[in-house]
């Protein structure tokens, strides 16, 4: 089975491999009914999904992830196709906002959310809305997707091609989060900017990801770009008008949604603001996983508050502030802790800002970065001019540390840890060299003096 993705001046040909695991996973979608307009009427679609991979035979992103959705009837297939199509379109528009510098095609980074392309099982052309069919004068973001050859036998004997839809997306390695960080891992902060900007843009397009959690954030390196990227857009939905049901992960659920779910008196009425807040809460959780460690986030922040066991720590600003202060005891981190804890509150910088329709993520991340800069660096930072002599004395070592850290492919946190290792071994090397030098000086000096004294005393 070969999938052809093409646009102006680019072409990707994906050869789909048989699945390693033949099991099919049932996945339900609640998608707007065709022709229902803004009435918000939803249609529940039950699909069986086969997960597999594909290899690109042309230039561009090498490994791809393929989901093959099997629908029950033609109506379901068409409704799902329209839903996935709109979803793919929203994701592409959010990524497009991240700027074209270095990006040659829409299927190349930078991305905030990994792009998904829908492919029809019956071999008919699928292209993004707004794109014209002719090759002349097509918009630069156009993607035309087509399945060549018949469905393979491993999909099922006698499978009707028109009941199958494929969703293909670039495959990215999962991230291994650090378990605990006793000092804030602020070296990660800057790498979240792209994701935050893309999330804001997705919300401006009135879409929400709805399942932003550590498992769905990966590290993407491609040519000269790198950064955190969101994957798994199965739960992504239009936020305005909001859906009546929401797919997500309970552990990472925003407090407002938890209250809505657990309080039958309030009734289950989703609002666009709650969906945006769910994404923003997810972003805060992911940033804190990078800063404080995933174990701390899942076992402290998302756990019940020991001072008020009815609520999670993450549902109260003072509780988050207290937990972070216990985790990072050094008072120098107070400004950073204050800004990190603010959105967990209910005030204008908390719940109100989180549920607002205005962009939030990029500004919040900028405030965190700014707060990190305000953290006292030792109380008495060393004036740079005075250190010039010292810098030139160790210039070779310093450059060697950087060269070692930059060598080979690695994520930024890995490079930082490599630098720590290199500094440690350089320090040992410098210390050993000095120790041997001064040992030799004292030994030779003492022996020379002894010889001289011996000659004087013995000769006299």
């Amino acid at each position, binding site marked *: 089975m070969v999938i052809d993705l093409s646009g102006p001046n680019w072409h990707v040909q994906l050869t789909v491999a048989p699945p390693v695991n033949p099991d099919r996973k049932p996945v339900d979608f609640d998608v707007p009914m065709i022709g229902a307009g803004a009435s918000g009427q939803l249609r529940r679609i039950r699909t069986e999904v086969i997960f597999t991979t594909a290899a690109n035979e042309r230039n561009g992103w090498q490994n791809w992830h393929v989901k093959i959705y099997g629908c029950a009837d033609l109506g379901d297939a068409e409704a799902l196709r329209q839903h996935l199509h709109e979803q793919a379109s929203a994701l592409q528009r959010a990524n497009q906002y991240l700027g074209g510098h270095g990006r040659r095609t829409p299927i190349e980074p930078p991305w905030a959310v990994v792009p998904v392309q829908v492919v029809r099982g019956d071999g008919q052309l699928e292209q993004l809305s707004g794109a014209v069919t002719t090759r002349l004068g097509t918009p630069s973001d156009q993607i035309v997707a087509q399945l060549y050859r018949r469905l393979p036998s491993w999909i099922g004997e006698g499978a009707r091609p028109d009941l199958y839809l494929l969703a293909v997306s670039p495959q990215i390695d999962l991230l291994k989060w650090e378990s605990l960080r006793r000092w804030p891992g602020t070296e990660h902060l800057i790498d979240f900017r792209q994701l935050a900007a893309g999330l804001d843009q997705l919300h401006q397009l009135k879409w929400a990801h709805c399942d932003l959690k550590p498992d769905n954030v990966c590290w993407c390196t491609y040519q000269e770009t790198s950064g955190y990227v969101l994957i798994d857009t199965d739960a992504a939905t239009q936020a305005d008008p909001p859906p009546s049901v929401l797919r997500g992960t309970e552990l990472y659920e925003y407090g407002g949604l938890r209250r809505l779910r657990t309080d039958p008196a309030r009734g289950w009425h989703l609002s666009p603001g709650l969906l945006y807040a769910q994404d923003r809460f997810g972003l805060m959780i992911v940033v804190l996983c990078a800063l404080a460690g995933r174990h701390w986030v899942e076992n402290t922040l998302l756990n019940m508050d020991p001072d008020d066991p009815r609520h999670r720590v993450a549902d109260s600003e003072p509780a988050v502030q207290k937990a972070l202060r216990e985790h990072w005891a050094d008072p120098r981190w107070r400004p950073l802790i204050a800004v990190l804890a603010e959105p967990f509150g209910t005030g204008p910088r908390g719940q109100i800002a989180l549920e607002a329709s205005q962009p939030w993520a990029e500004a919040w991340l900028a405030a965190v970065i700014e707060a990190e800069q305000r953290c006292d*660096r030792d109380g008495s930072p060393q004036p740079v001019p005075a250190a010039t002599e010292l810098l030139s004395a160790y210039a070779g070592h310093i450059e060697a540390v950087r060269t070692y850290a930059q060598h080979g492919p690695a994520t930024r946190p890995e490079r930082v840890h490599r630098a720590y*290792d290199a*500094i440690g071994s350089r320090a*040992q090397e410098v210390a050993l060299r000095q120790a041997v030098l*001064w040992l030799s000086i004292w030994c030779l*000096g*003492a022996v020379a003096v002894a*010889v001289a004294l011996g000659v004087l005393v013995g000769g006299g």
Partner: protein
Amino acid sequence: MTDSWRVALRDRVARRCGEPDKHFARYGYTFGNWIDAPPGARLPAFLEVEAGVADYLRVAAQTGRHLGTVAGLAIGGAAATLVFLVVCVVA
């Protein structure tokens, strides 16, 4: 003997300088930016990180110098006494 001396030196350096991850956490994301910066990037924030690395290495060198001096005085003193006696006898 050499191994135990190396271990003693390593422990002293670790004690005096501190663990690098803890020591350099103060620079936050600037540390990562410094690693990724092209050679010759002379931003004040990067100079501050480089000054921190140089200072860390200076403390390590000081520790090595101190241990070398102590060991040199002990070994050199013993060797000097022996040499002095031999020279006196021979002369």
